[in-house]
């Protein structure tokens, strides 16, 4: 069992958890993920590591309540409660080097896994330009944390309720067009956002790393459910990734595979909501 040391709400249906998992906290790095299972009937949920604290043994995760399991986690798993299973770190860590000037783009929940990458890139000497975006002001989080590790931070919202109105790809394009030398870009967020960002950087030939959140079971290379096509070759996001060269990724295939269980996810959520319609702490 893995105890929830801290839980706080970052926005509507977005929560940050610090889970006690000392073995993982000792070795977990930016770019890697863990798999957790809430209870005996639960599914295995992959979540990217935000932060590891070897001192307290805490592993920080940010969870957006998009489906039944994550909603259940938000509703019923509080500080002091325990999660049944927690395994990691899994996947390949981000390639942190001093590249020069880098742009780190986070869209929506993607800001969470982006933060440790920006932090570590800054630590090794890069000039870090951060671009973070959310649909609206309420859904924005970690602005302070990103601000602390970026040399410049550009904040966007789709509806203009916070920062500049527009998408994260807009300032990315402006910076690249300005002729400023950018050595590398990280873009993490919804598949469609990453797809747009890699199309912006492609003509400028700036290497662009994306982090893919495909559906997976074990997270260690055994099921192959997370396979994605990178440069026309099937790769497993769990062991070959989750980070890949964005210019080589087939995003349409990724999105198609992410949506495969849409019907089942809706059914599961409806059943959960019907059962917990009243008296659920939100």
């Amino acid at each position: 069992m893995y105890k929830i040391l801290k839980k706080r709400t970052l926005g509507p249906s977005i929560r940050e958890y610090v889970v006690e998992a000392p073995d993982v906290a000792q070795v977990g790095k930016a770019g890697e993920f863990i798999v957790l299972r809430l209870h005996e009937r639960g599914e295995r949920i992959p979540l990217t590591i935000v932060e590891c604290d070897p001192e307290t043994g805490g592993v920080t995760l940010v969870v957006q309540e998009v489906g039944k399991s994550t909603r259940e986690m938000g509703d019923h798993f509080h500080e002091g409660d325990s999660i049944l299973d927690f395994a990691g770190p899994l996947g390949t860590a981000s390639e942190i080097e001093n590249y020069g000037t880098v742009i780190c783009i986070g869209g929506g929940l993607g800001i969470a896994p982006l933060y440790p990458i920006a932090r570590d890139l800054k630590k090794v000497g890069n000039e870090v330009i951060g671009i973070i975006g959310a649909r609206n002001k309420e859904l924005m989080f970690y602005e302070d944390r990103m601000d602390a590790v970026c040399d410049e931070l550009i904040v966007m919202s789709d509806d203009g309720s916070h920062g500049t109105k527009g998408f994260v790809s807009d300032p990315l394009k402006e910076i690249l067009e300005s002729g400023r030398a950018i050595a590398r870009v990280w873009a993490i967020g919804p598949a469609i956002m990453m797809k747009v960002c890699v199309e912006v950087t492609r003509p400028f030939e700036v290497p662009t790393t994306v982090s893919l959140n495909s559906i997976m079971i074990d997270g260690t290379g055994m099921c192959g459910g997370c396979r994605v096509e990178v440069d026309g070759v099937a790769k497993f996001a769990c062991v070959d990734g989750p980070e890949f060269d964005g210019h080589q990724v087939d995003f349409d295939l990724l999105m198609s595979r992410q949506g495969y269980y849409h019907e089942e996810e809706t059914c599961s959520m409806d059943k959960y909501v019907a059962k917990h319609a009243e008296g659920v702490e939100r």
Partner: protein
Amino acid sequence: MHVPPSMHESDTGKRIAVIGAGPAGLTVAGEMRRRGHAVTIFELLHVAGGVLMYGIPEFRLPKAIVQREIGALCEMGVNIEVNMVIGRTHTVQELLDGDYDAVFIGTGAGLPRFLGVPGESLNGVFSANEFLTRINLMKAYLFPEYDTPIKVGERVVTVGGGNVAMDSSRTALRLGARESVIVYRRSEAELPARGEEVHHAKEEGIQFQLLTNPIEFIGENGNLKAIRCIKMELGELDDSGRRRPVPIEGTEFEIEATTVVIAVGNGPHPLIPQTTPHLDLNRWGSIVADPETGLTSIRSVYAGGDIVTGAATVIEAMGAGKRAAQAMHAFLT
């Protein structure tokens, strides 16, 4: 690398780390504990049992039996740490540098092979590992009571002719498929599955489309719709001593399918081989180990089961575990 707090006392003063709680690892653990050593098994999944839990279906091996056997090991004092990803959470070297006198690697053949034909990433194409793991380990047959879903559809085609293919096709029937078809590239005589398994499959109404090989998966809106196949004939003997299947030109045809399960074998689970320097591997990525003792190229590190032999049987893995335990005991005492 700390010793788990629940670690049972060692009568001999020796501590053994077993990586992987499958048939080979469980056997080593029991044999070594019986000889008085303290034993900890590290398992990356959330339950012990390996392929006995995620691979072999309930109708062939009730999970309650597996758990009873594992319970008996725990009662003997074997310590089992689940969710422990050796190679990532800790490495083999850390186990050796820490409190363990010997390590046994029994991490199995967990890496699913695909065919490498177009359309294989369409929705509805599963590796047998994924299909069976969703159902057996995650209990997708009880969805939505359990959270992990599976889609089966009307017509399931399983590619391959081994025991796993038989398990997959029979599981598909139990999950409501109206038709379950096995597509295999050689003839019935070459089916690698045990005769009994083929017999059961036929009894249950599994259709066999023999001397047939998929060449493309055809989709509609990202979802599988049909499989394009080609007829095969048997030619010259190949390395395995079986007649090589050769495609017959101009015999392409399509089979409709809602789901395809690829059951053409597994490669060695790559996690330990990739993260253990100085561990000798063969050209397939399997660990090189002495067939008599299981000793690897690293002193006090032993290996056995599918991670050494490539995908084989539970019985062979248990045999390798027994032999390795004997050798480890002799080495330690």
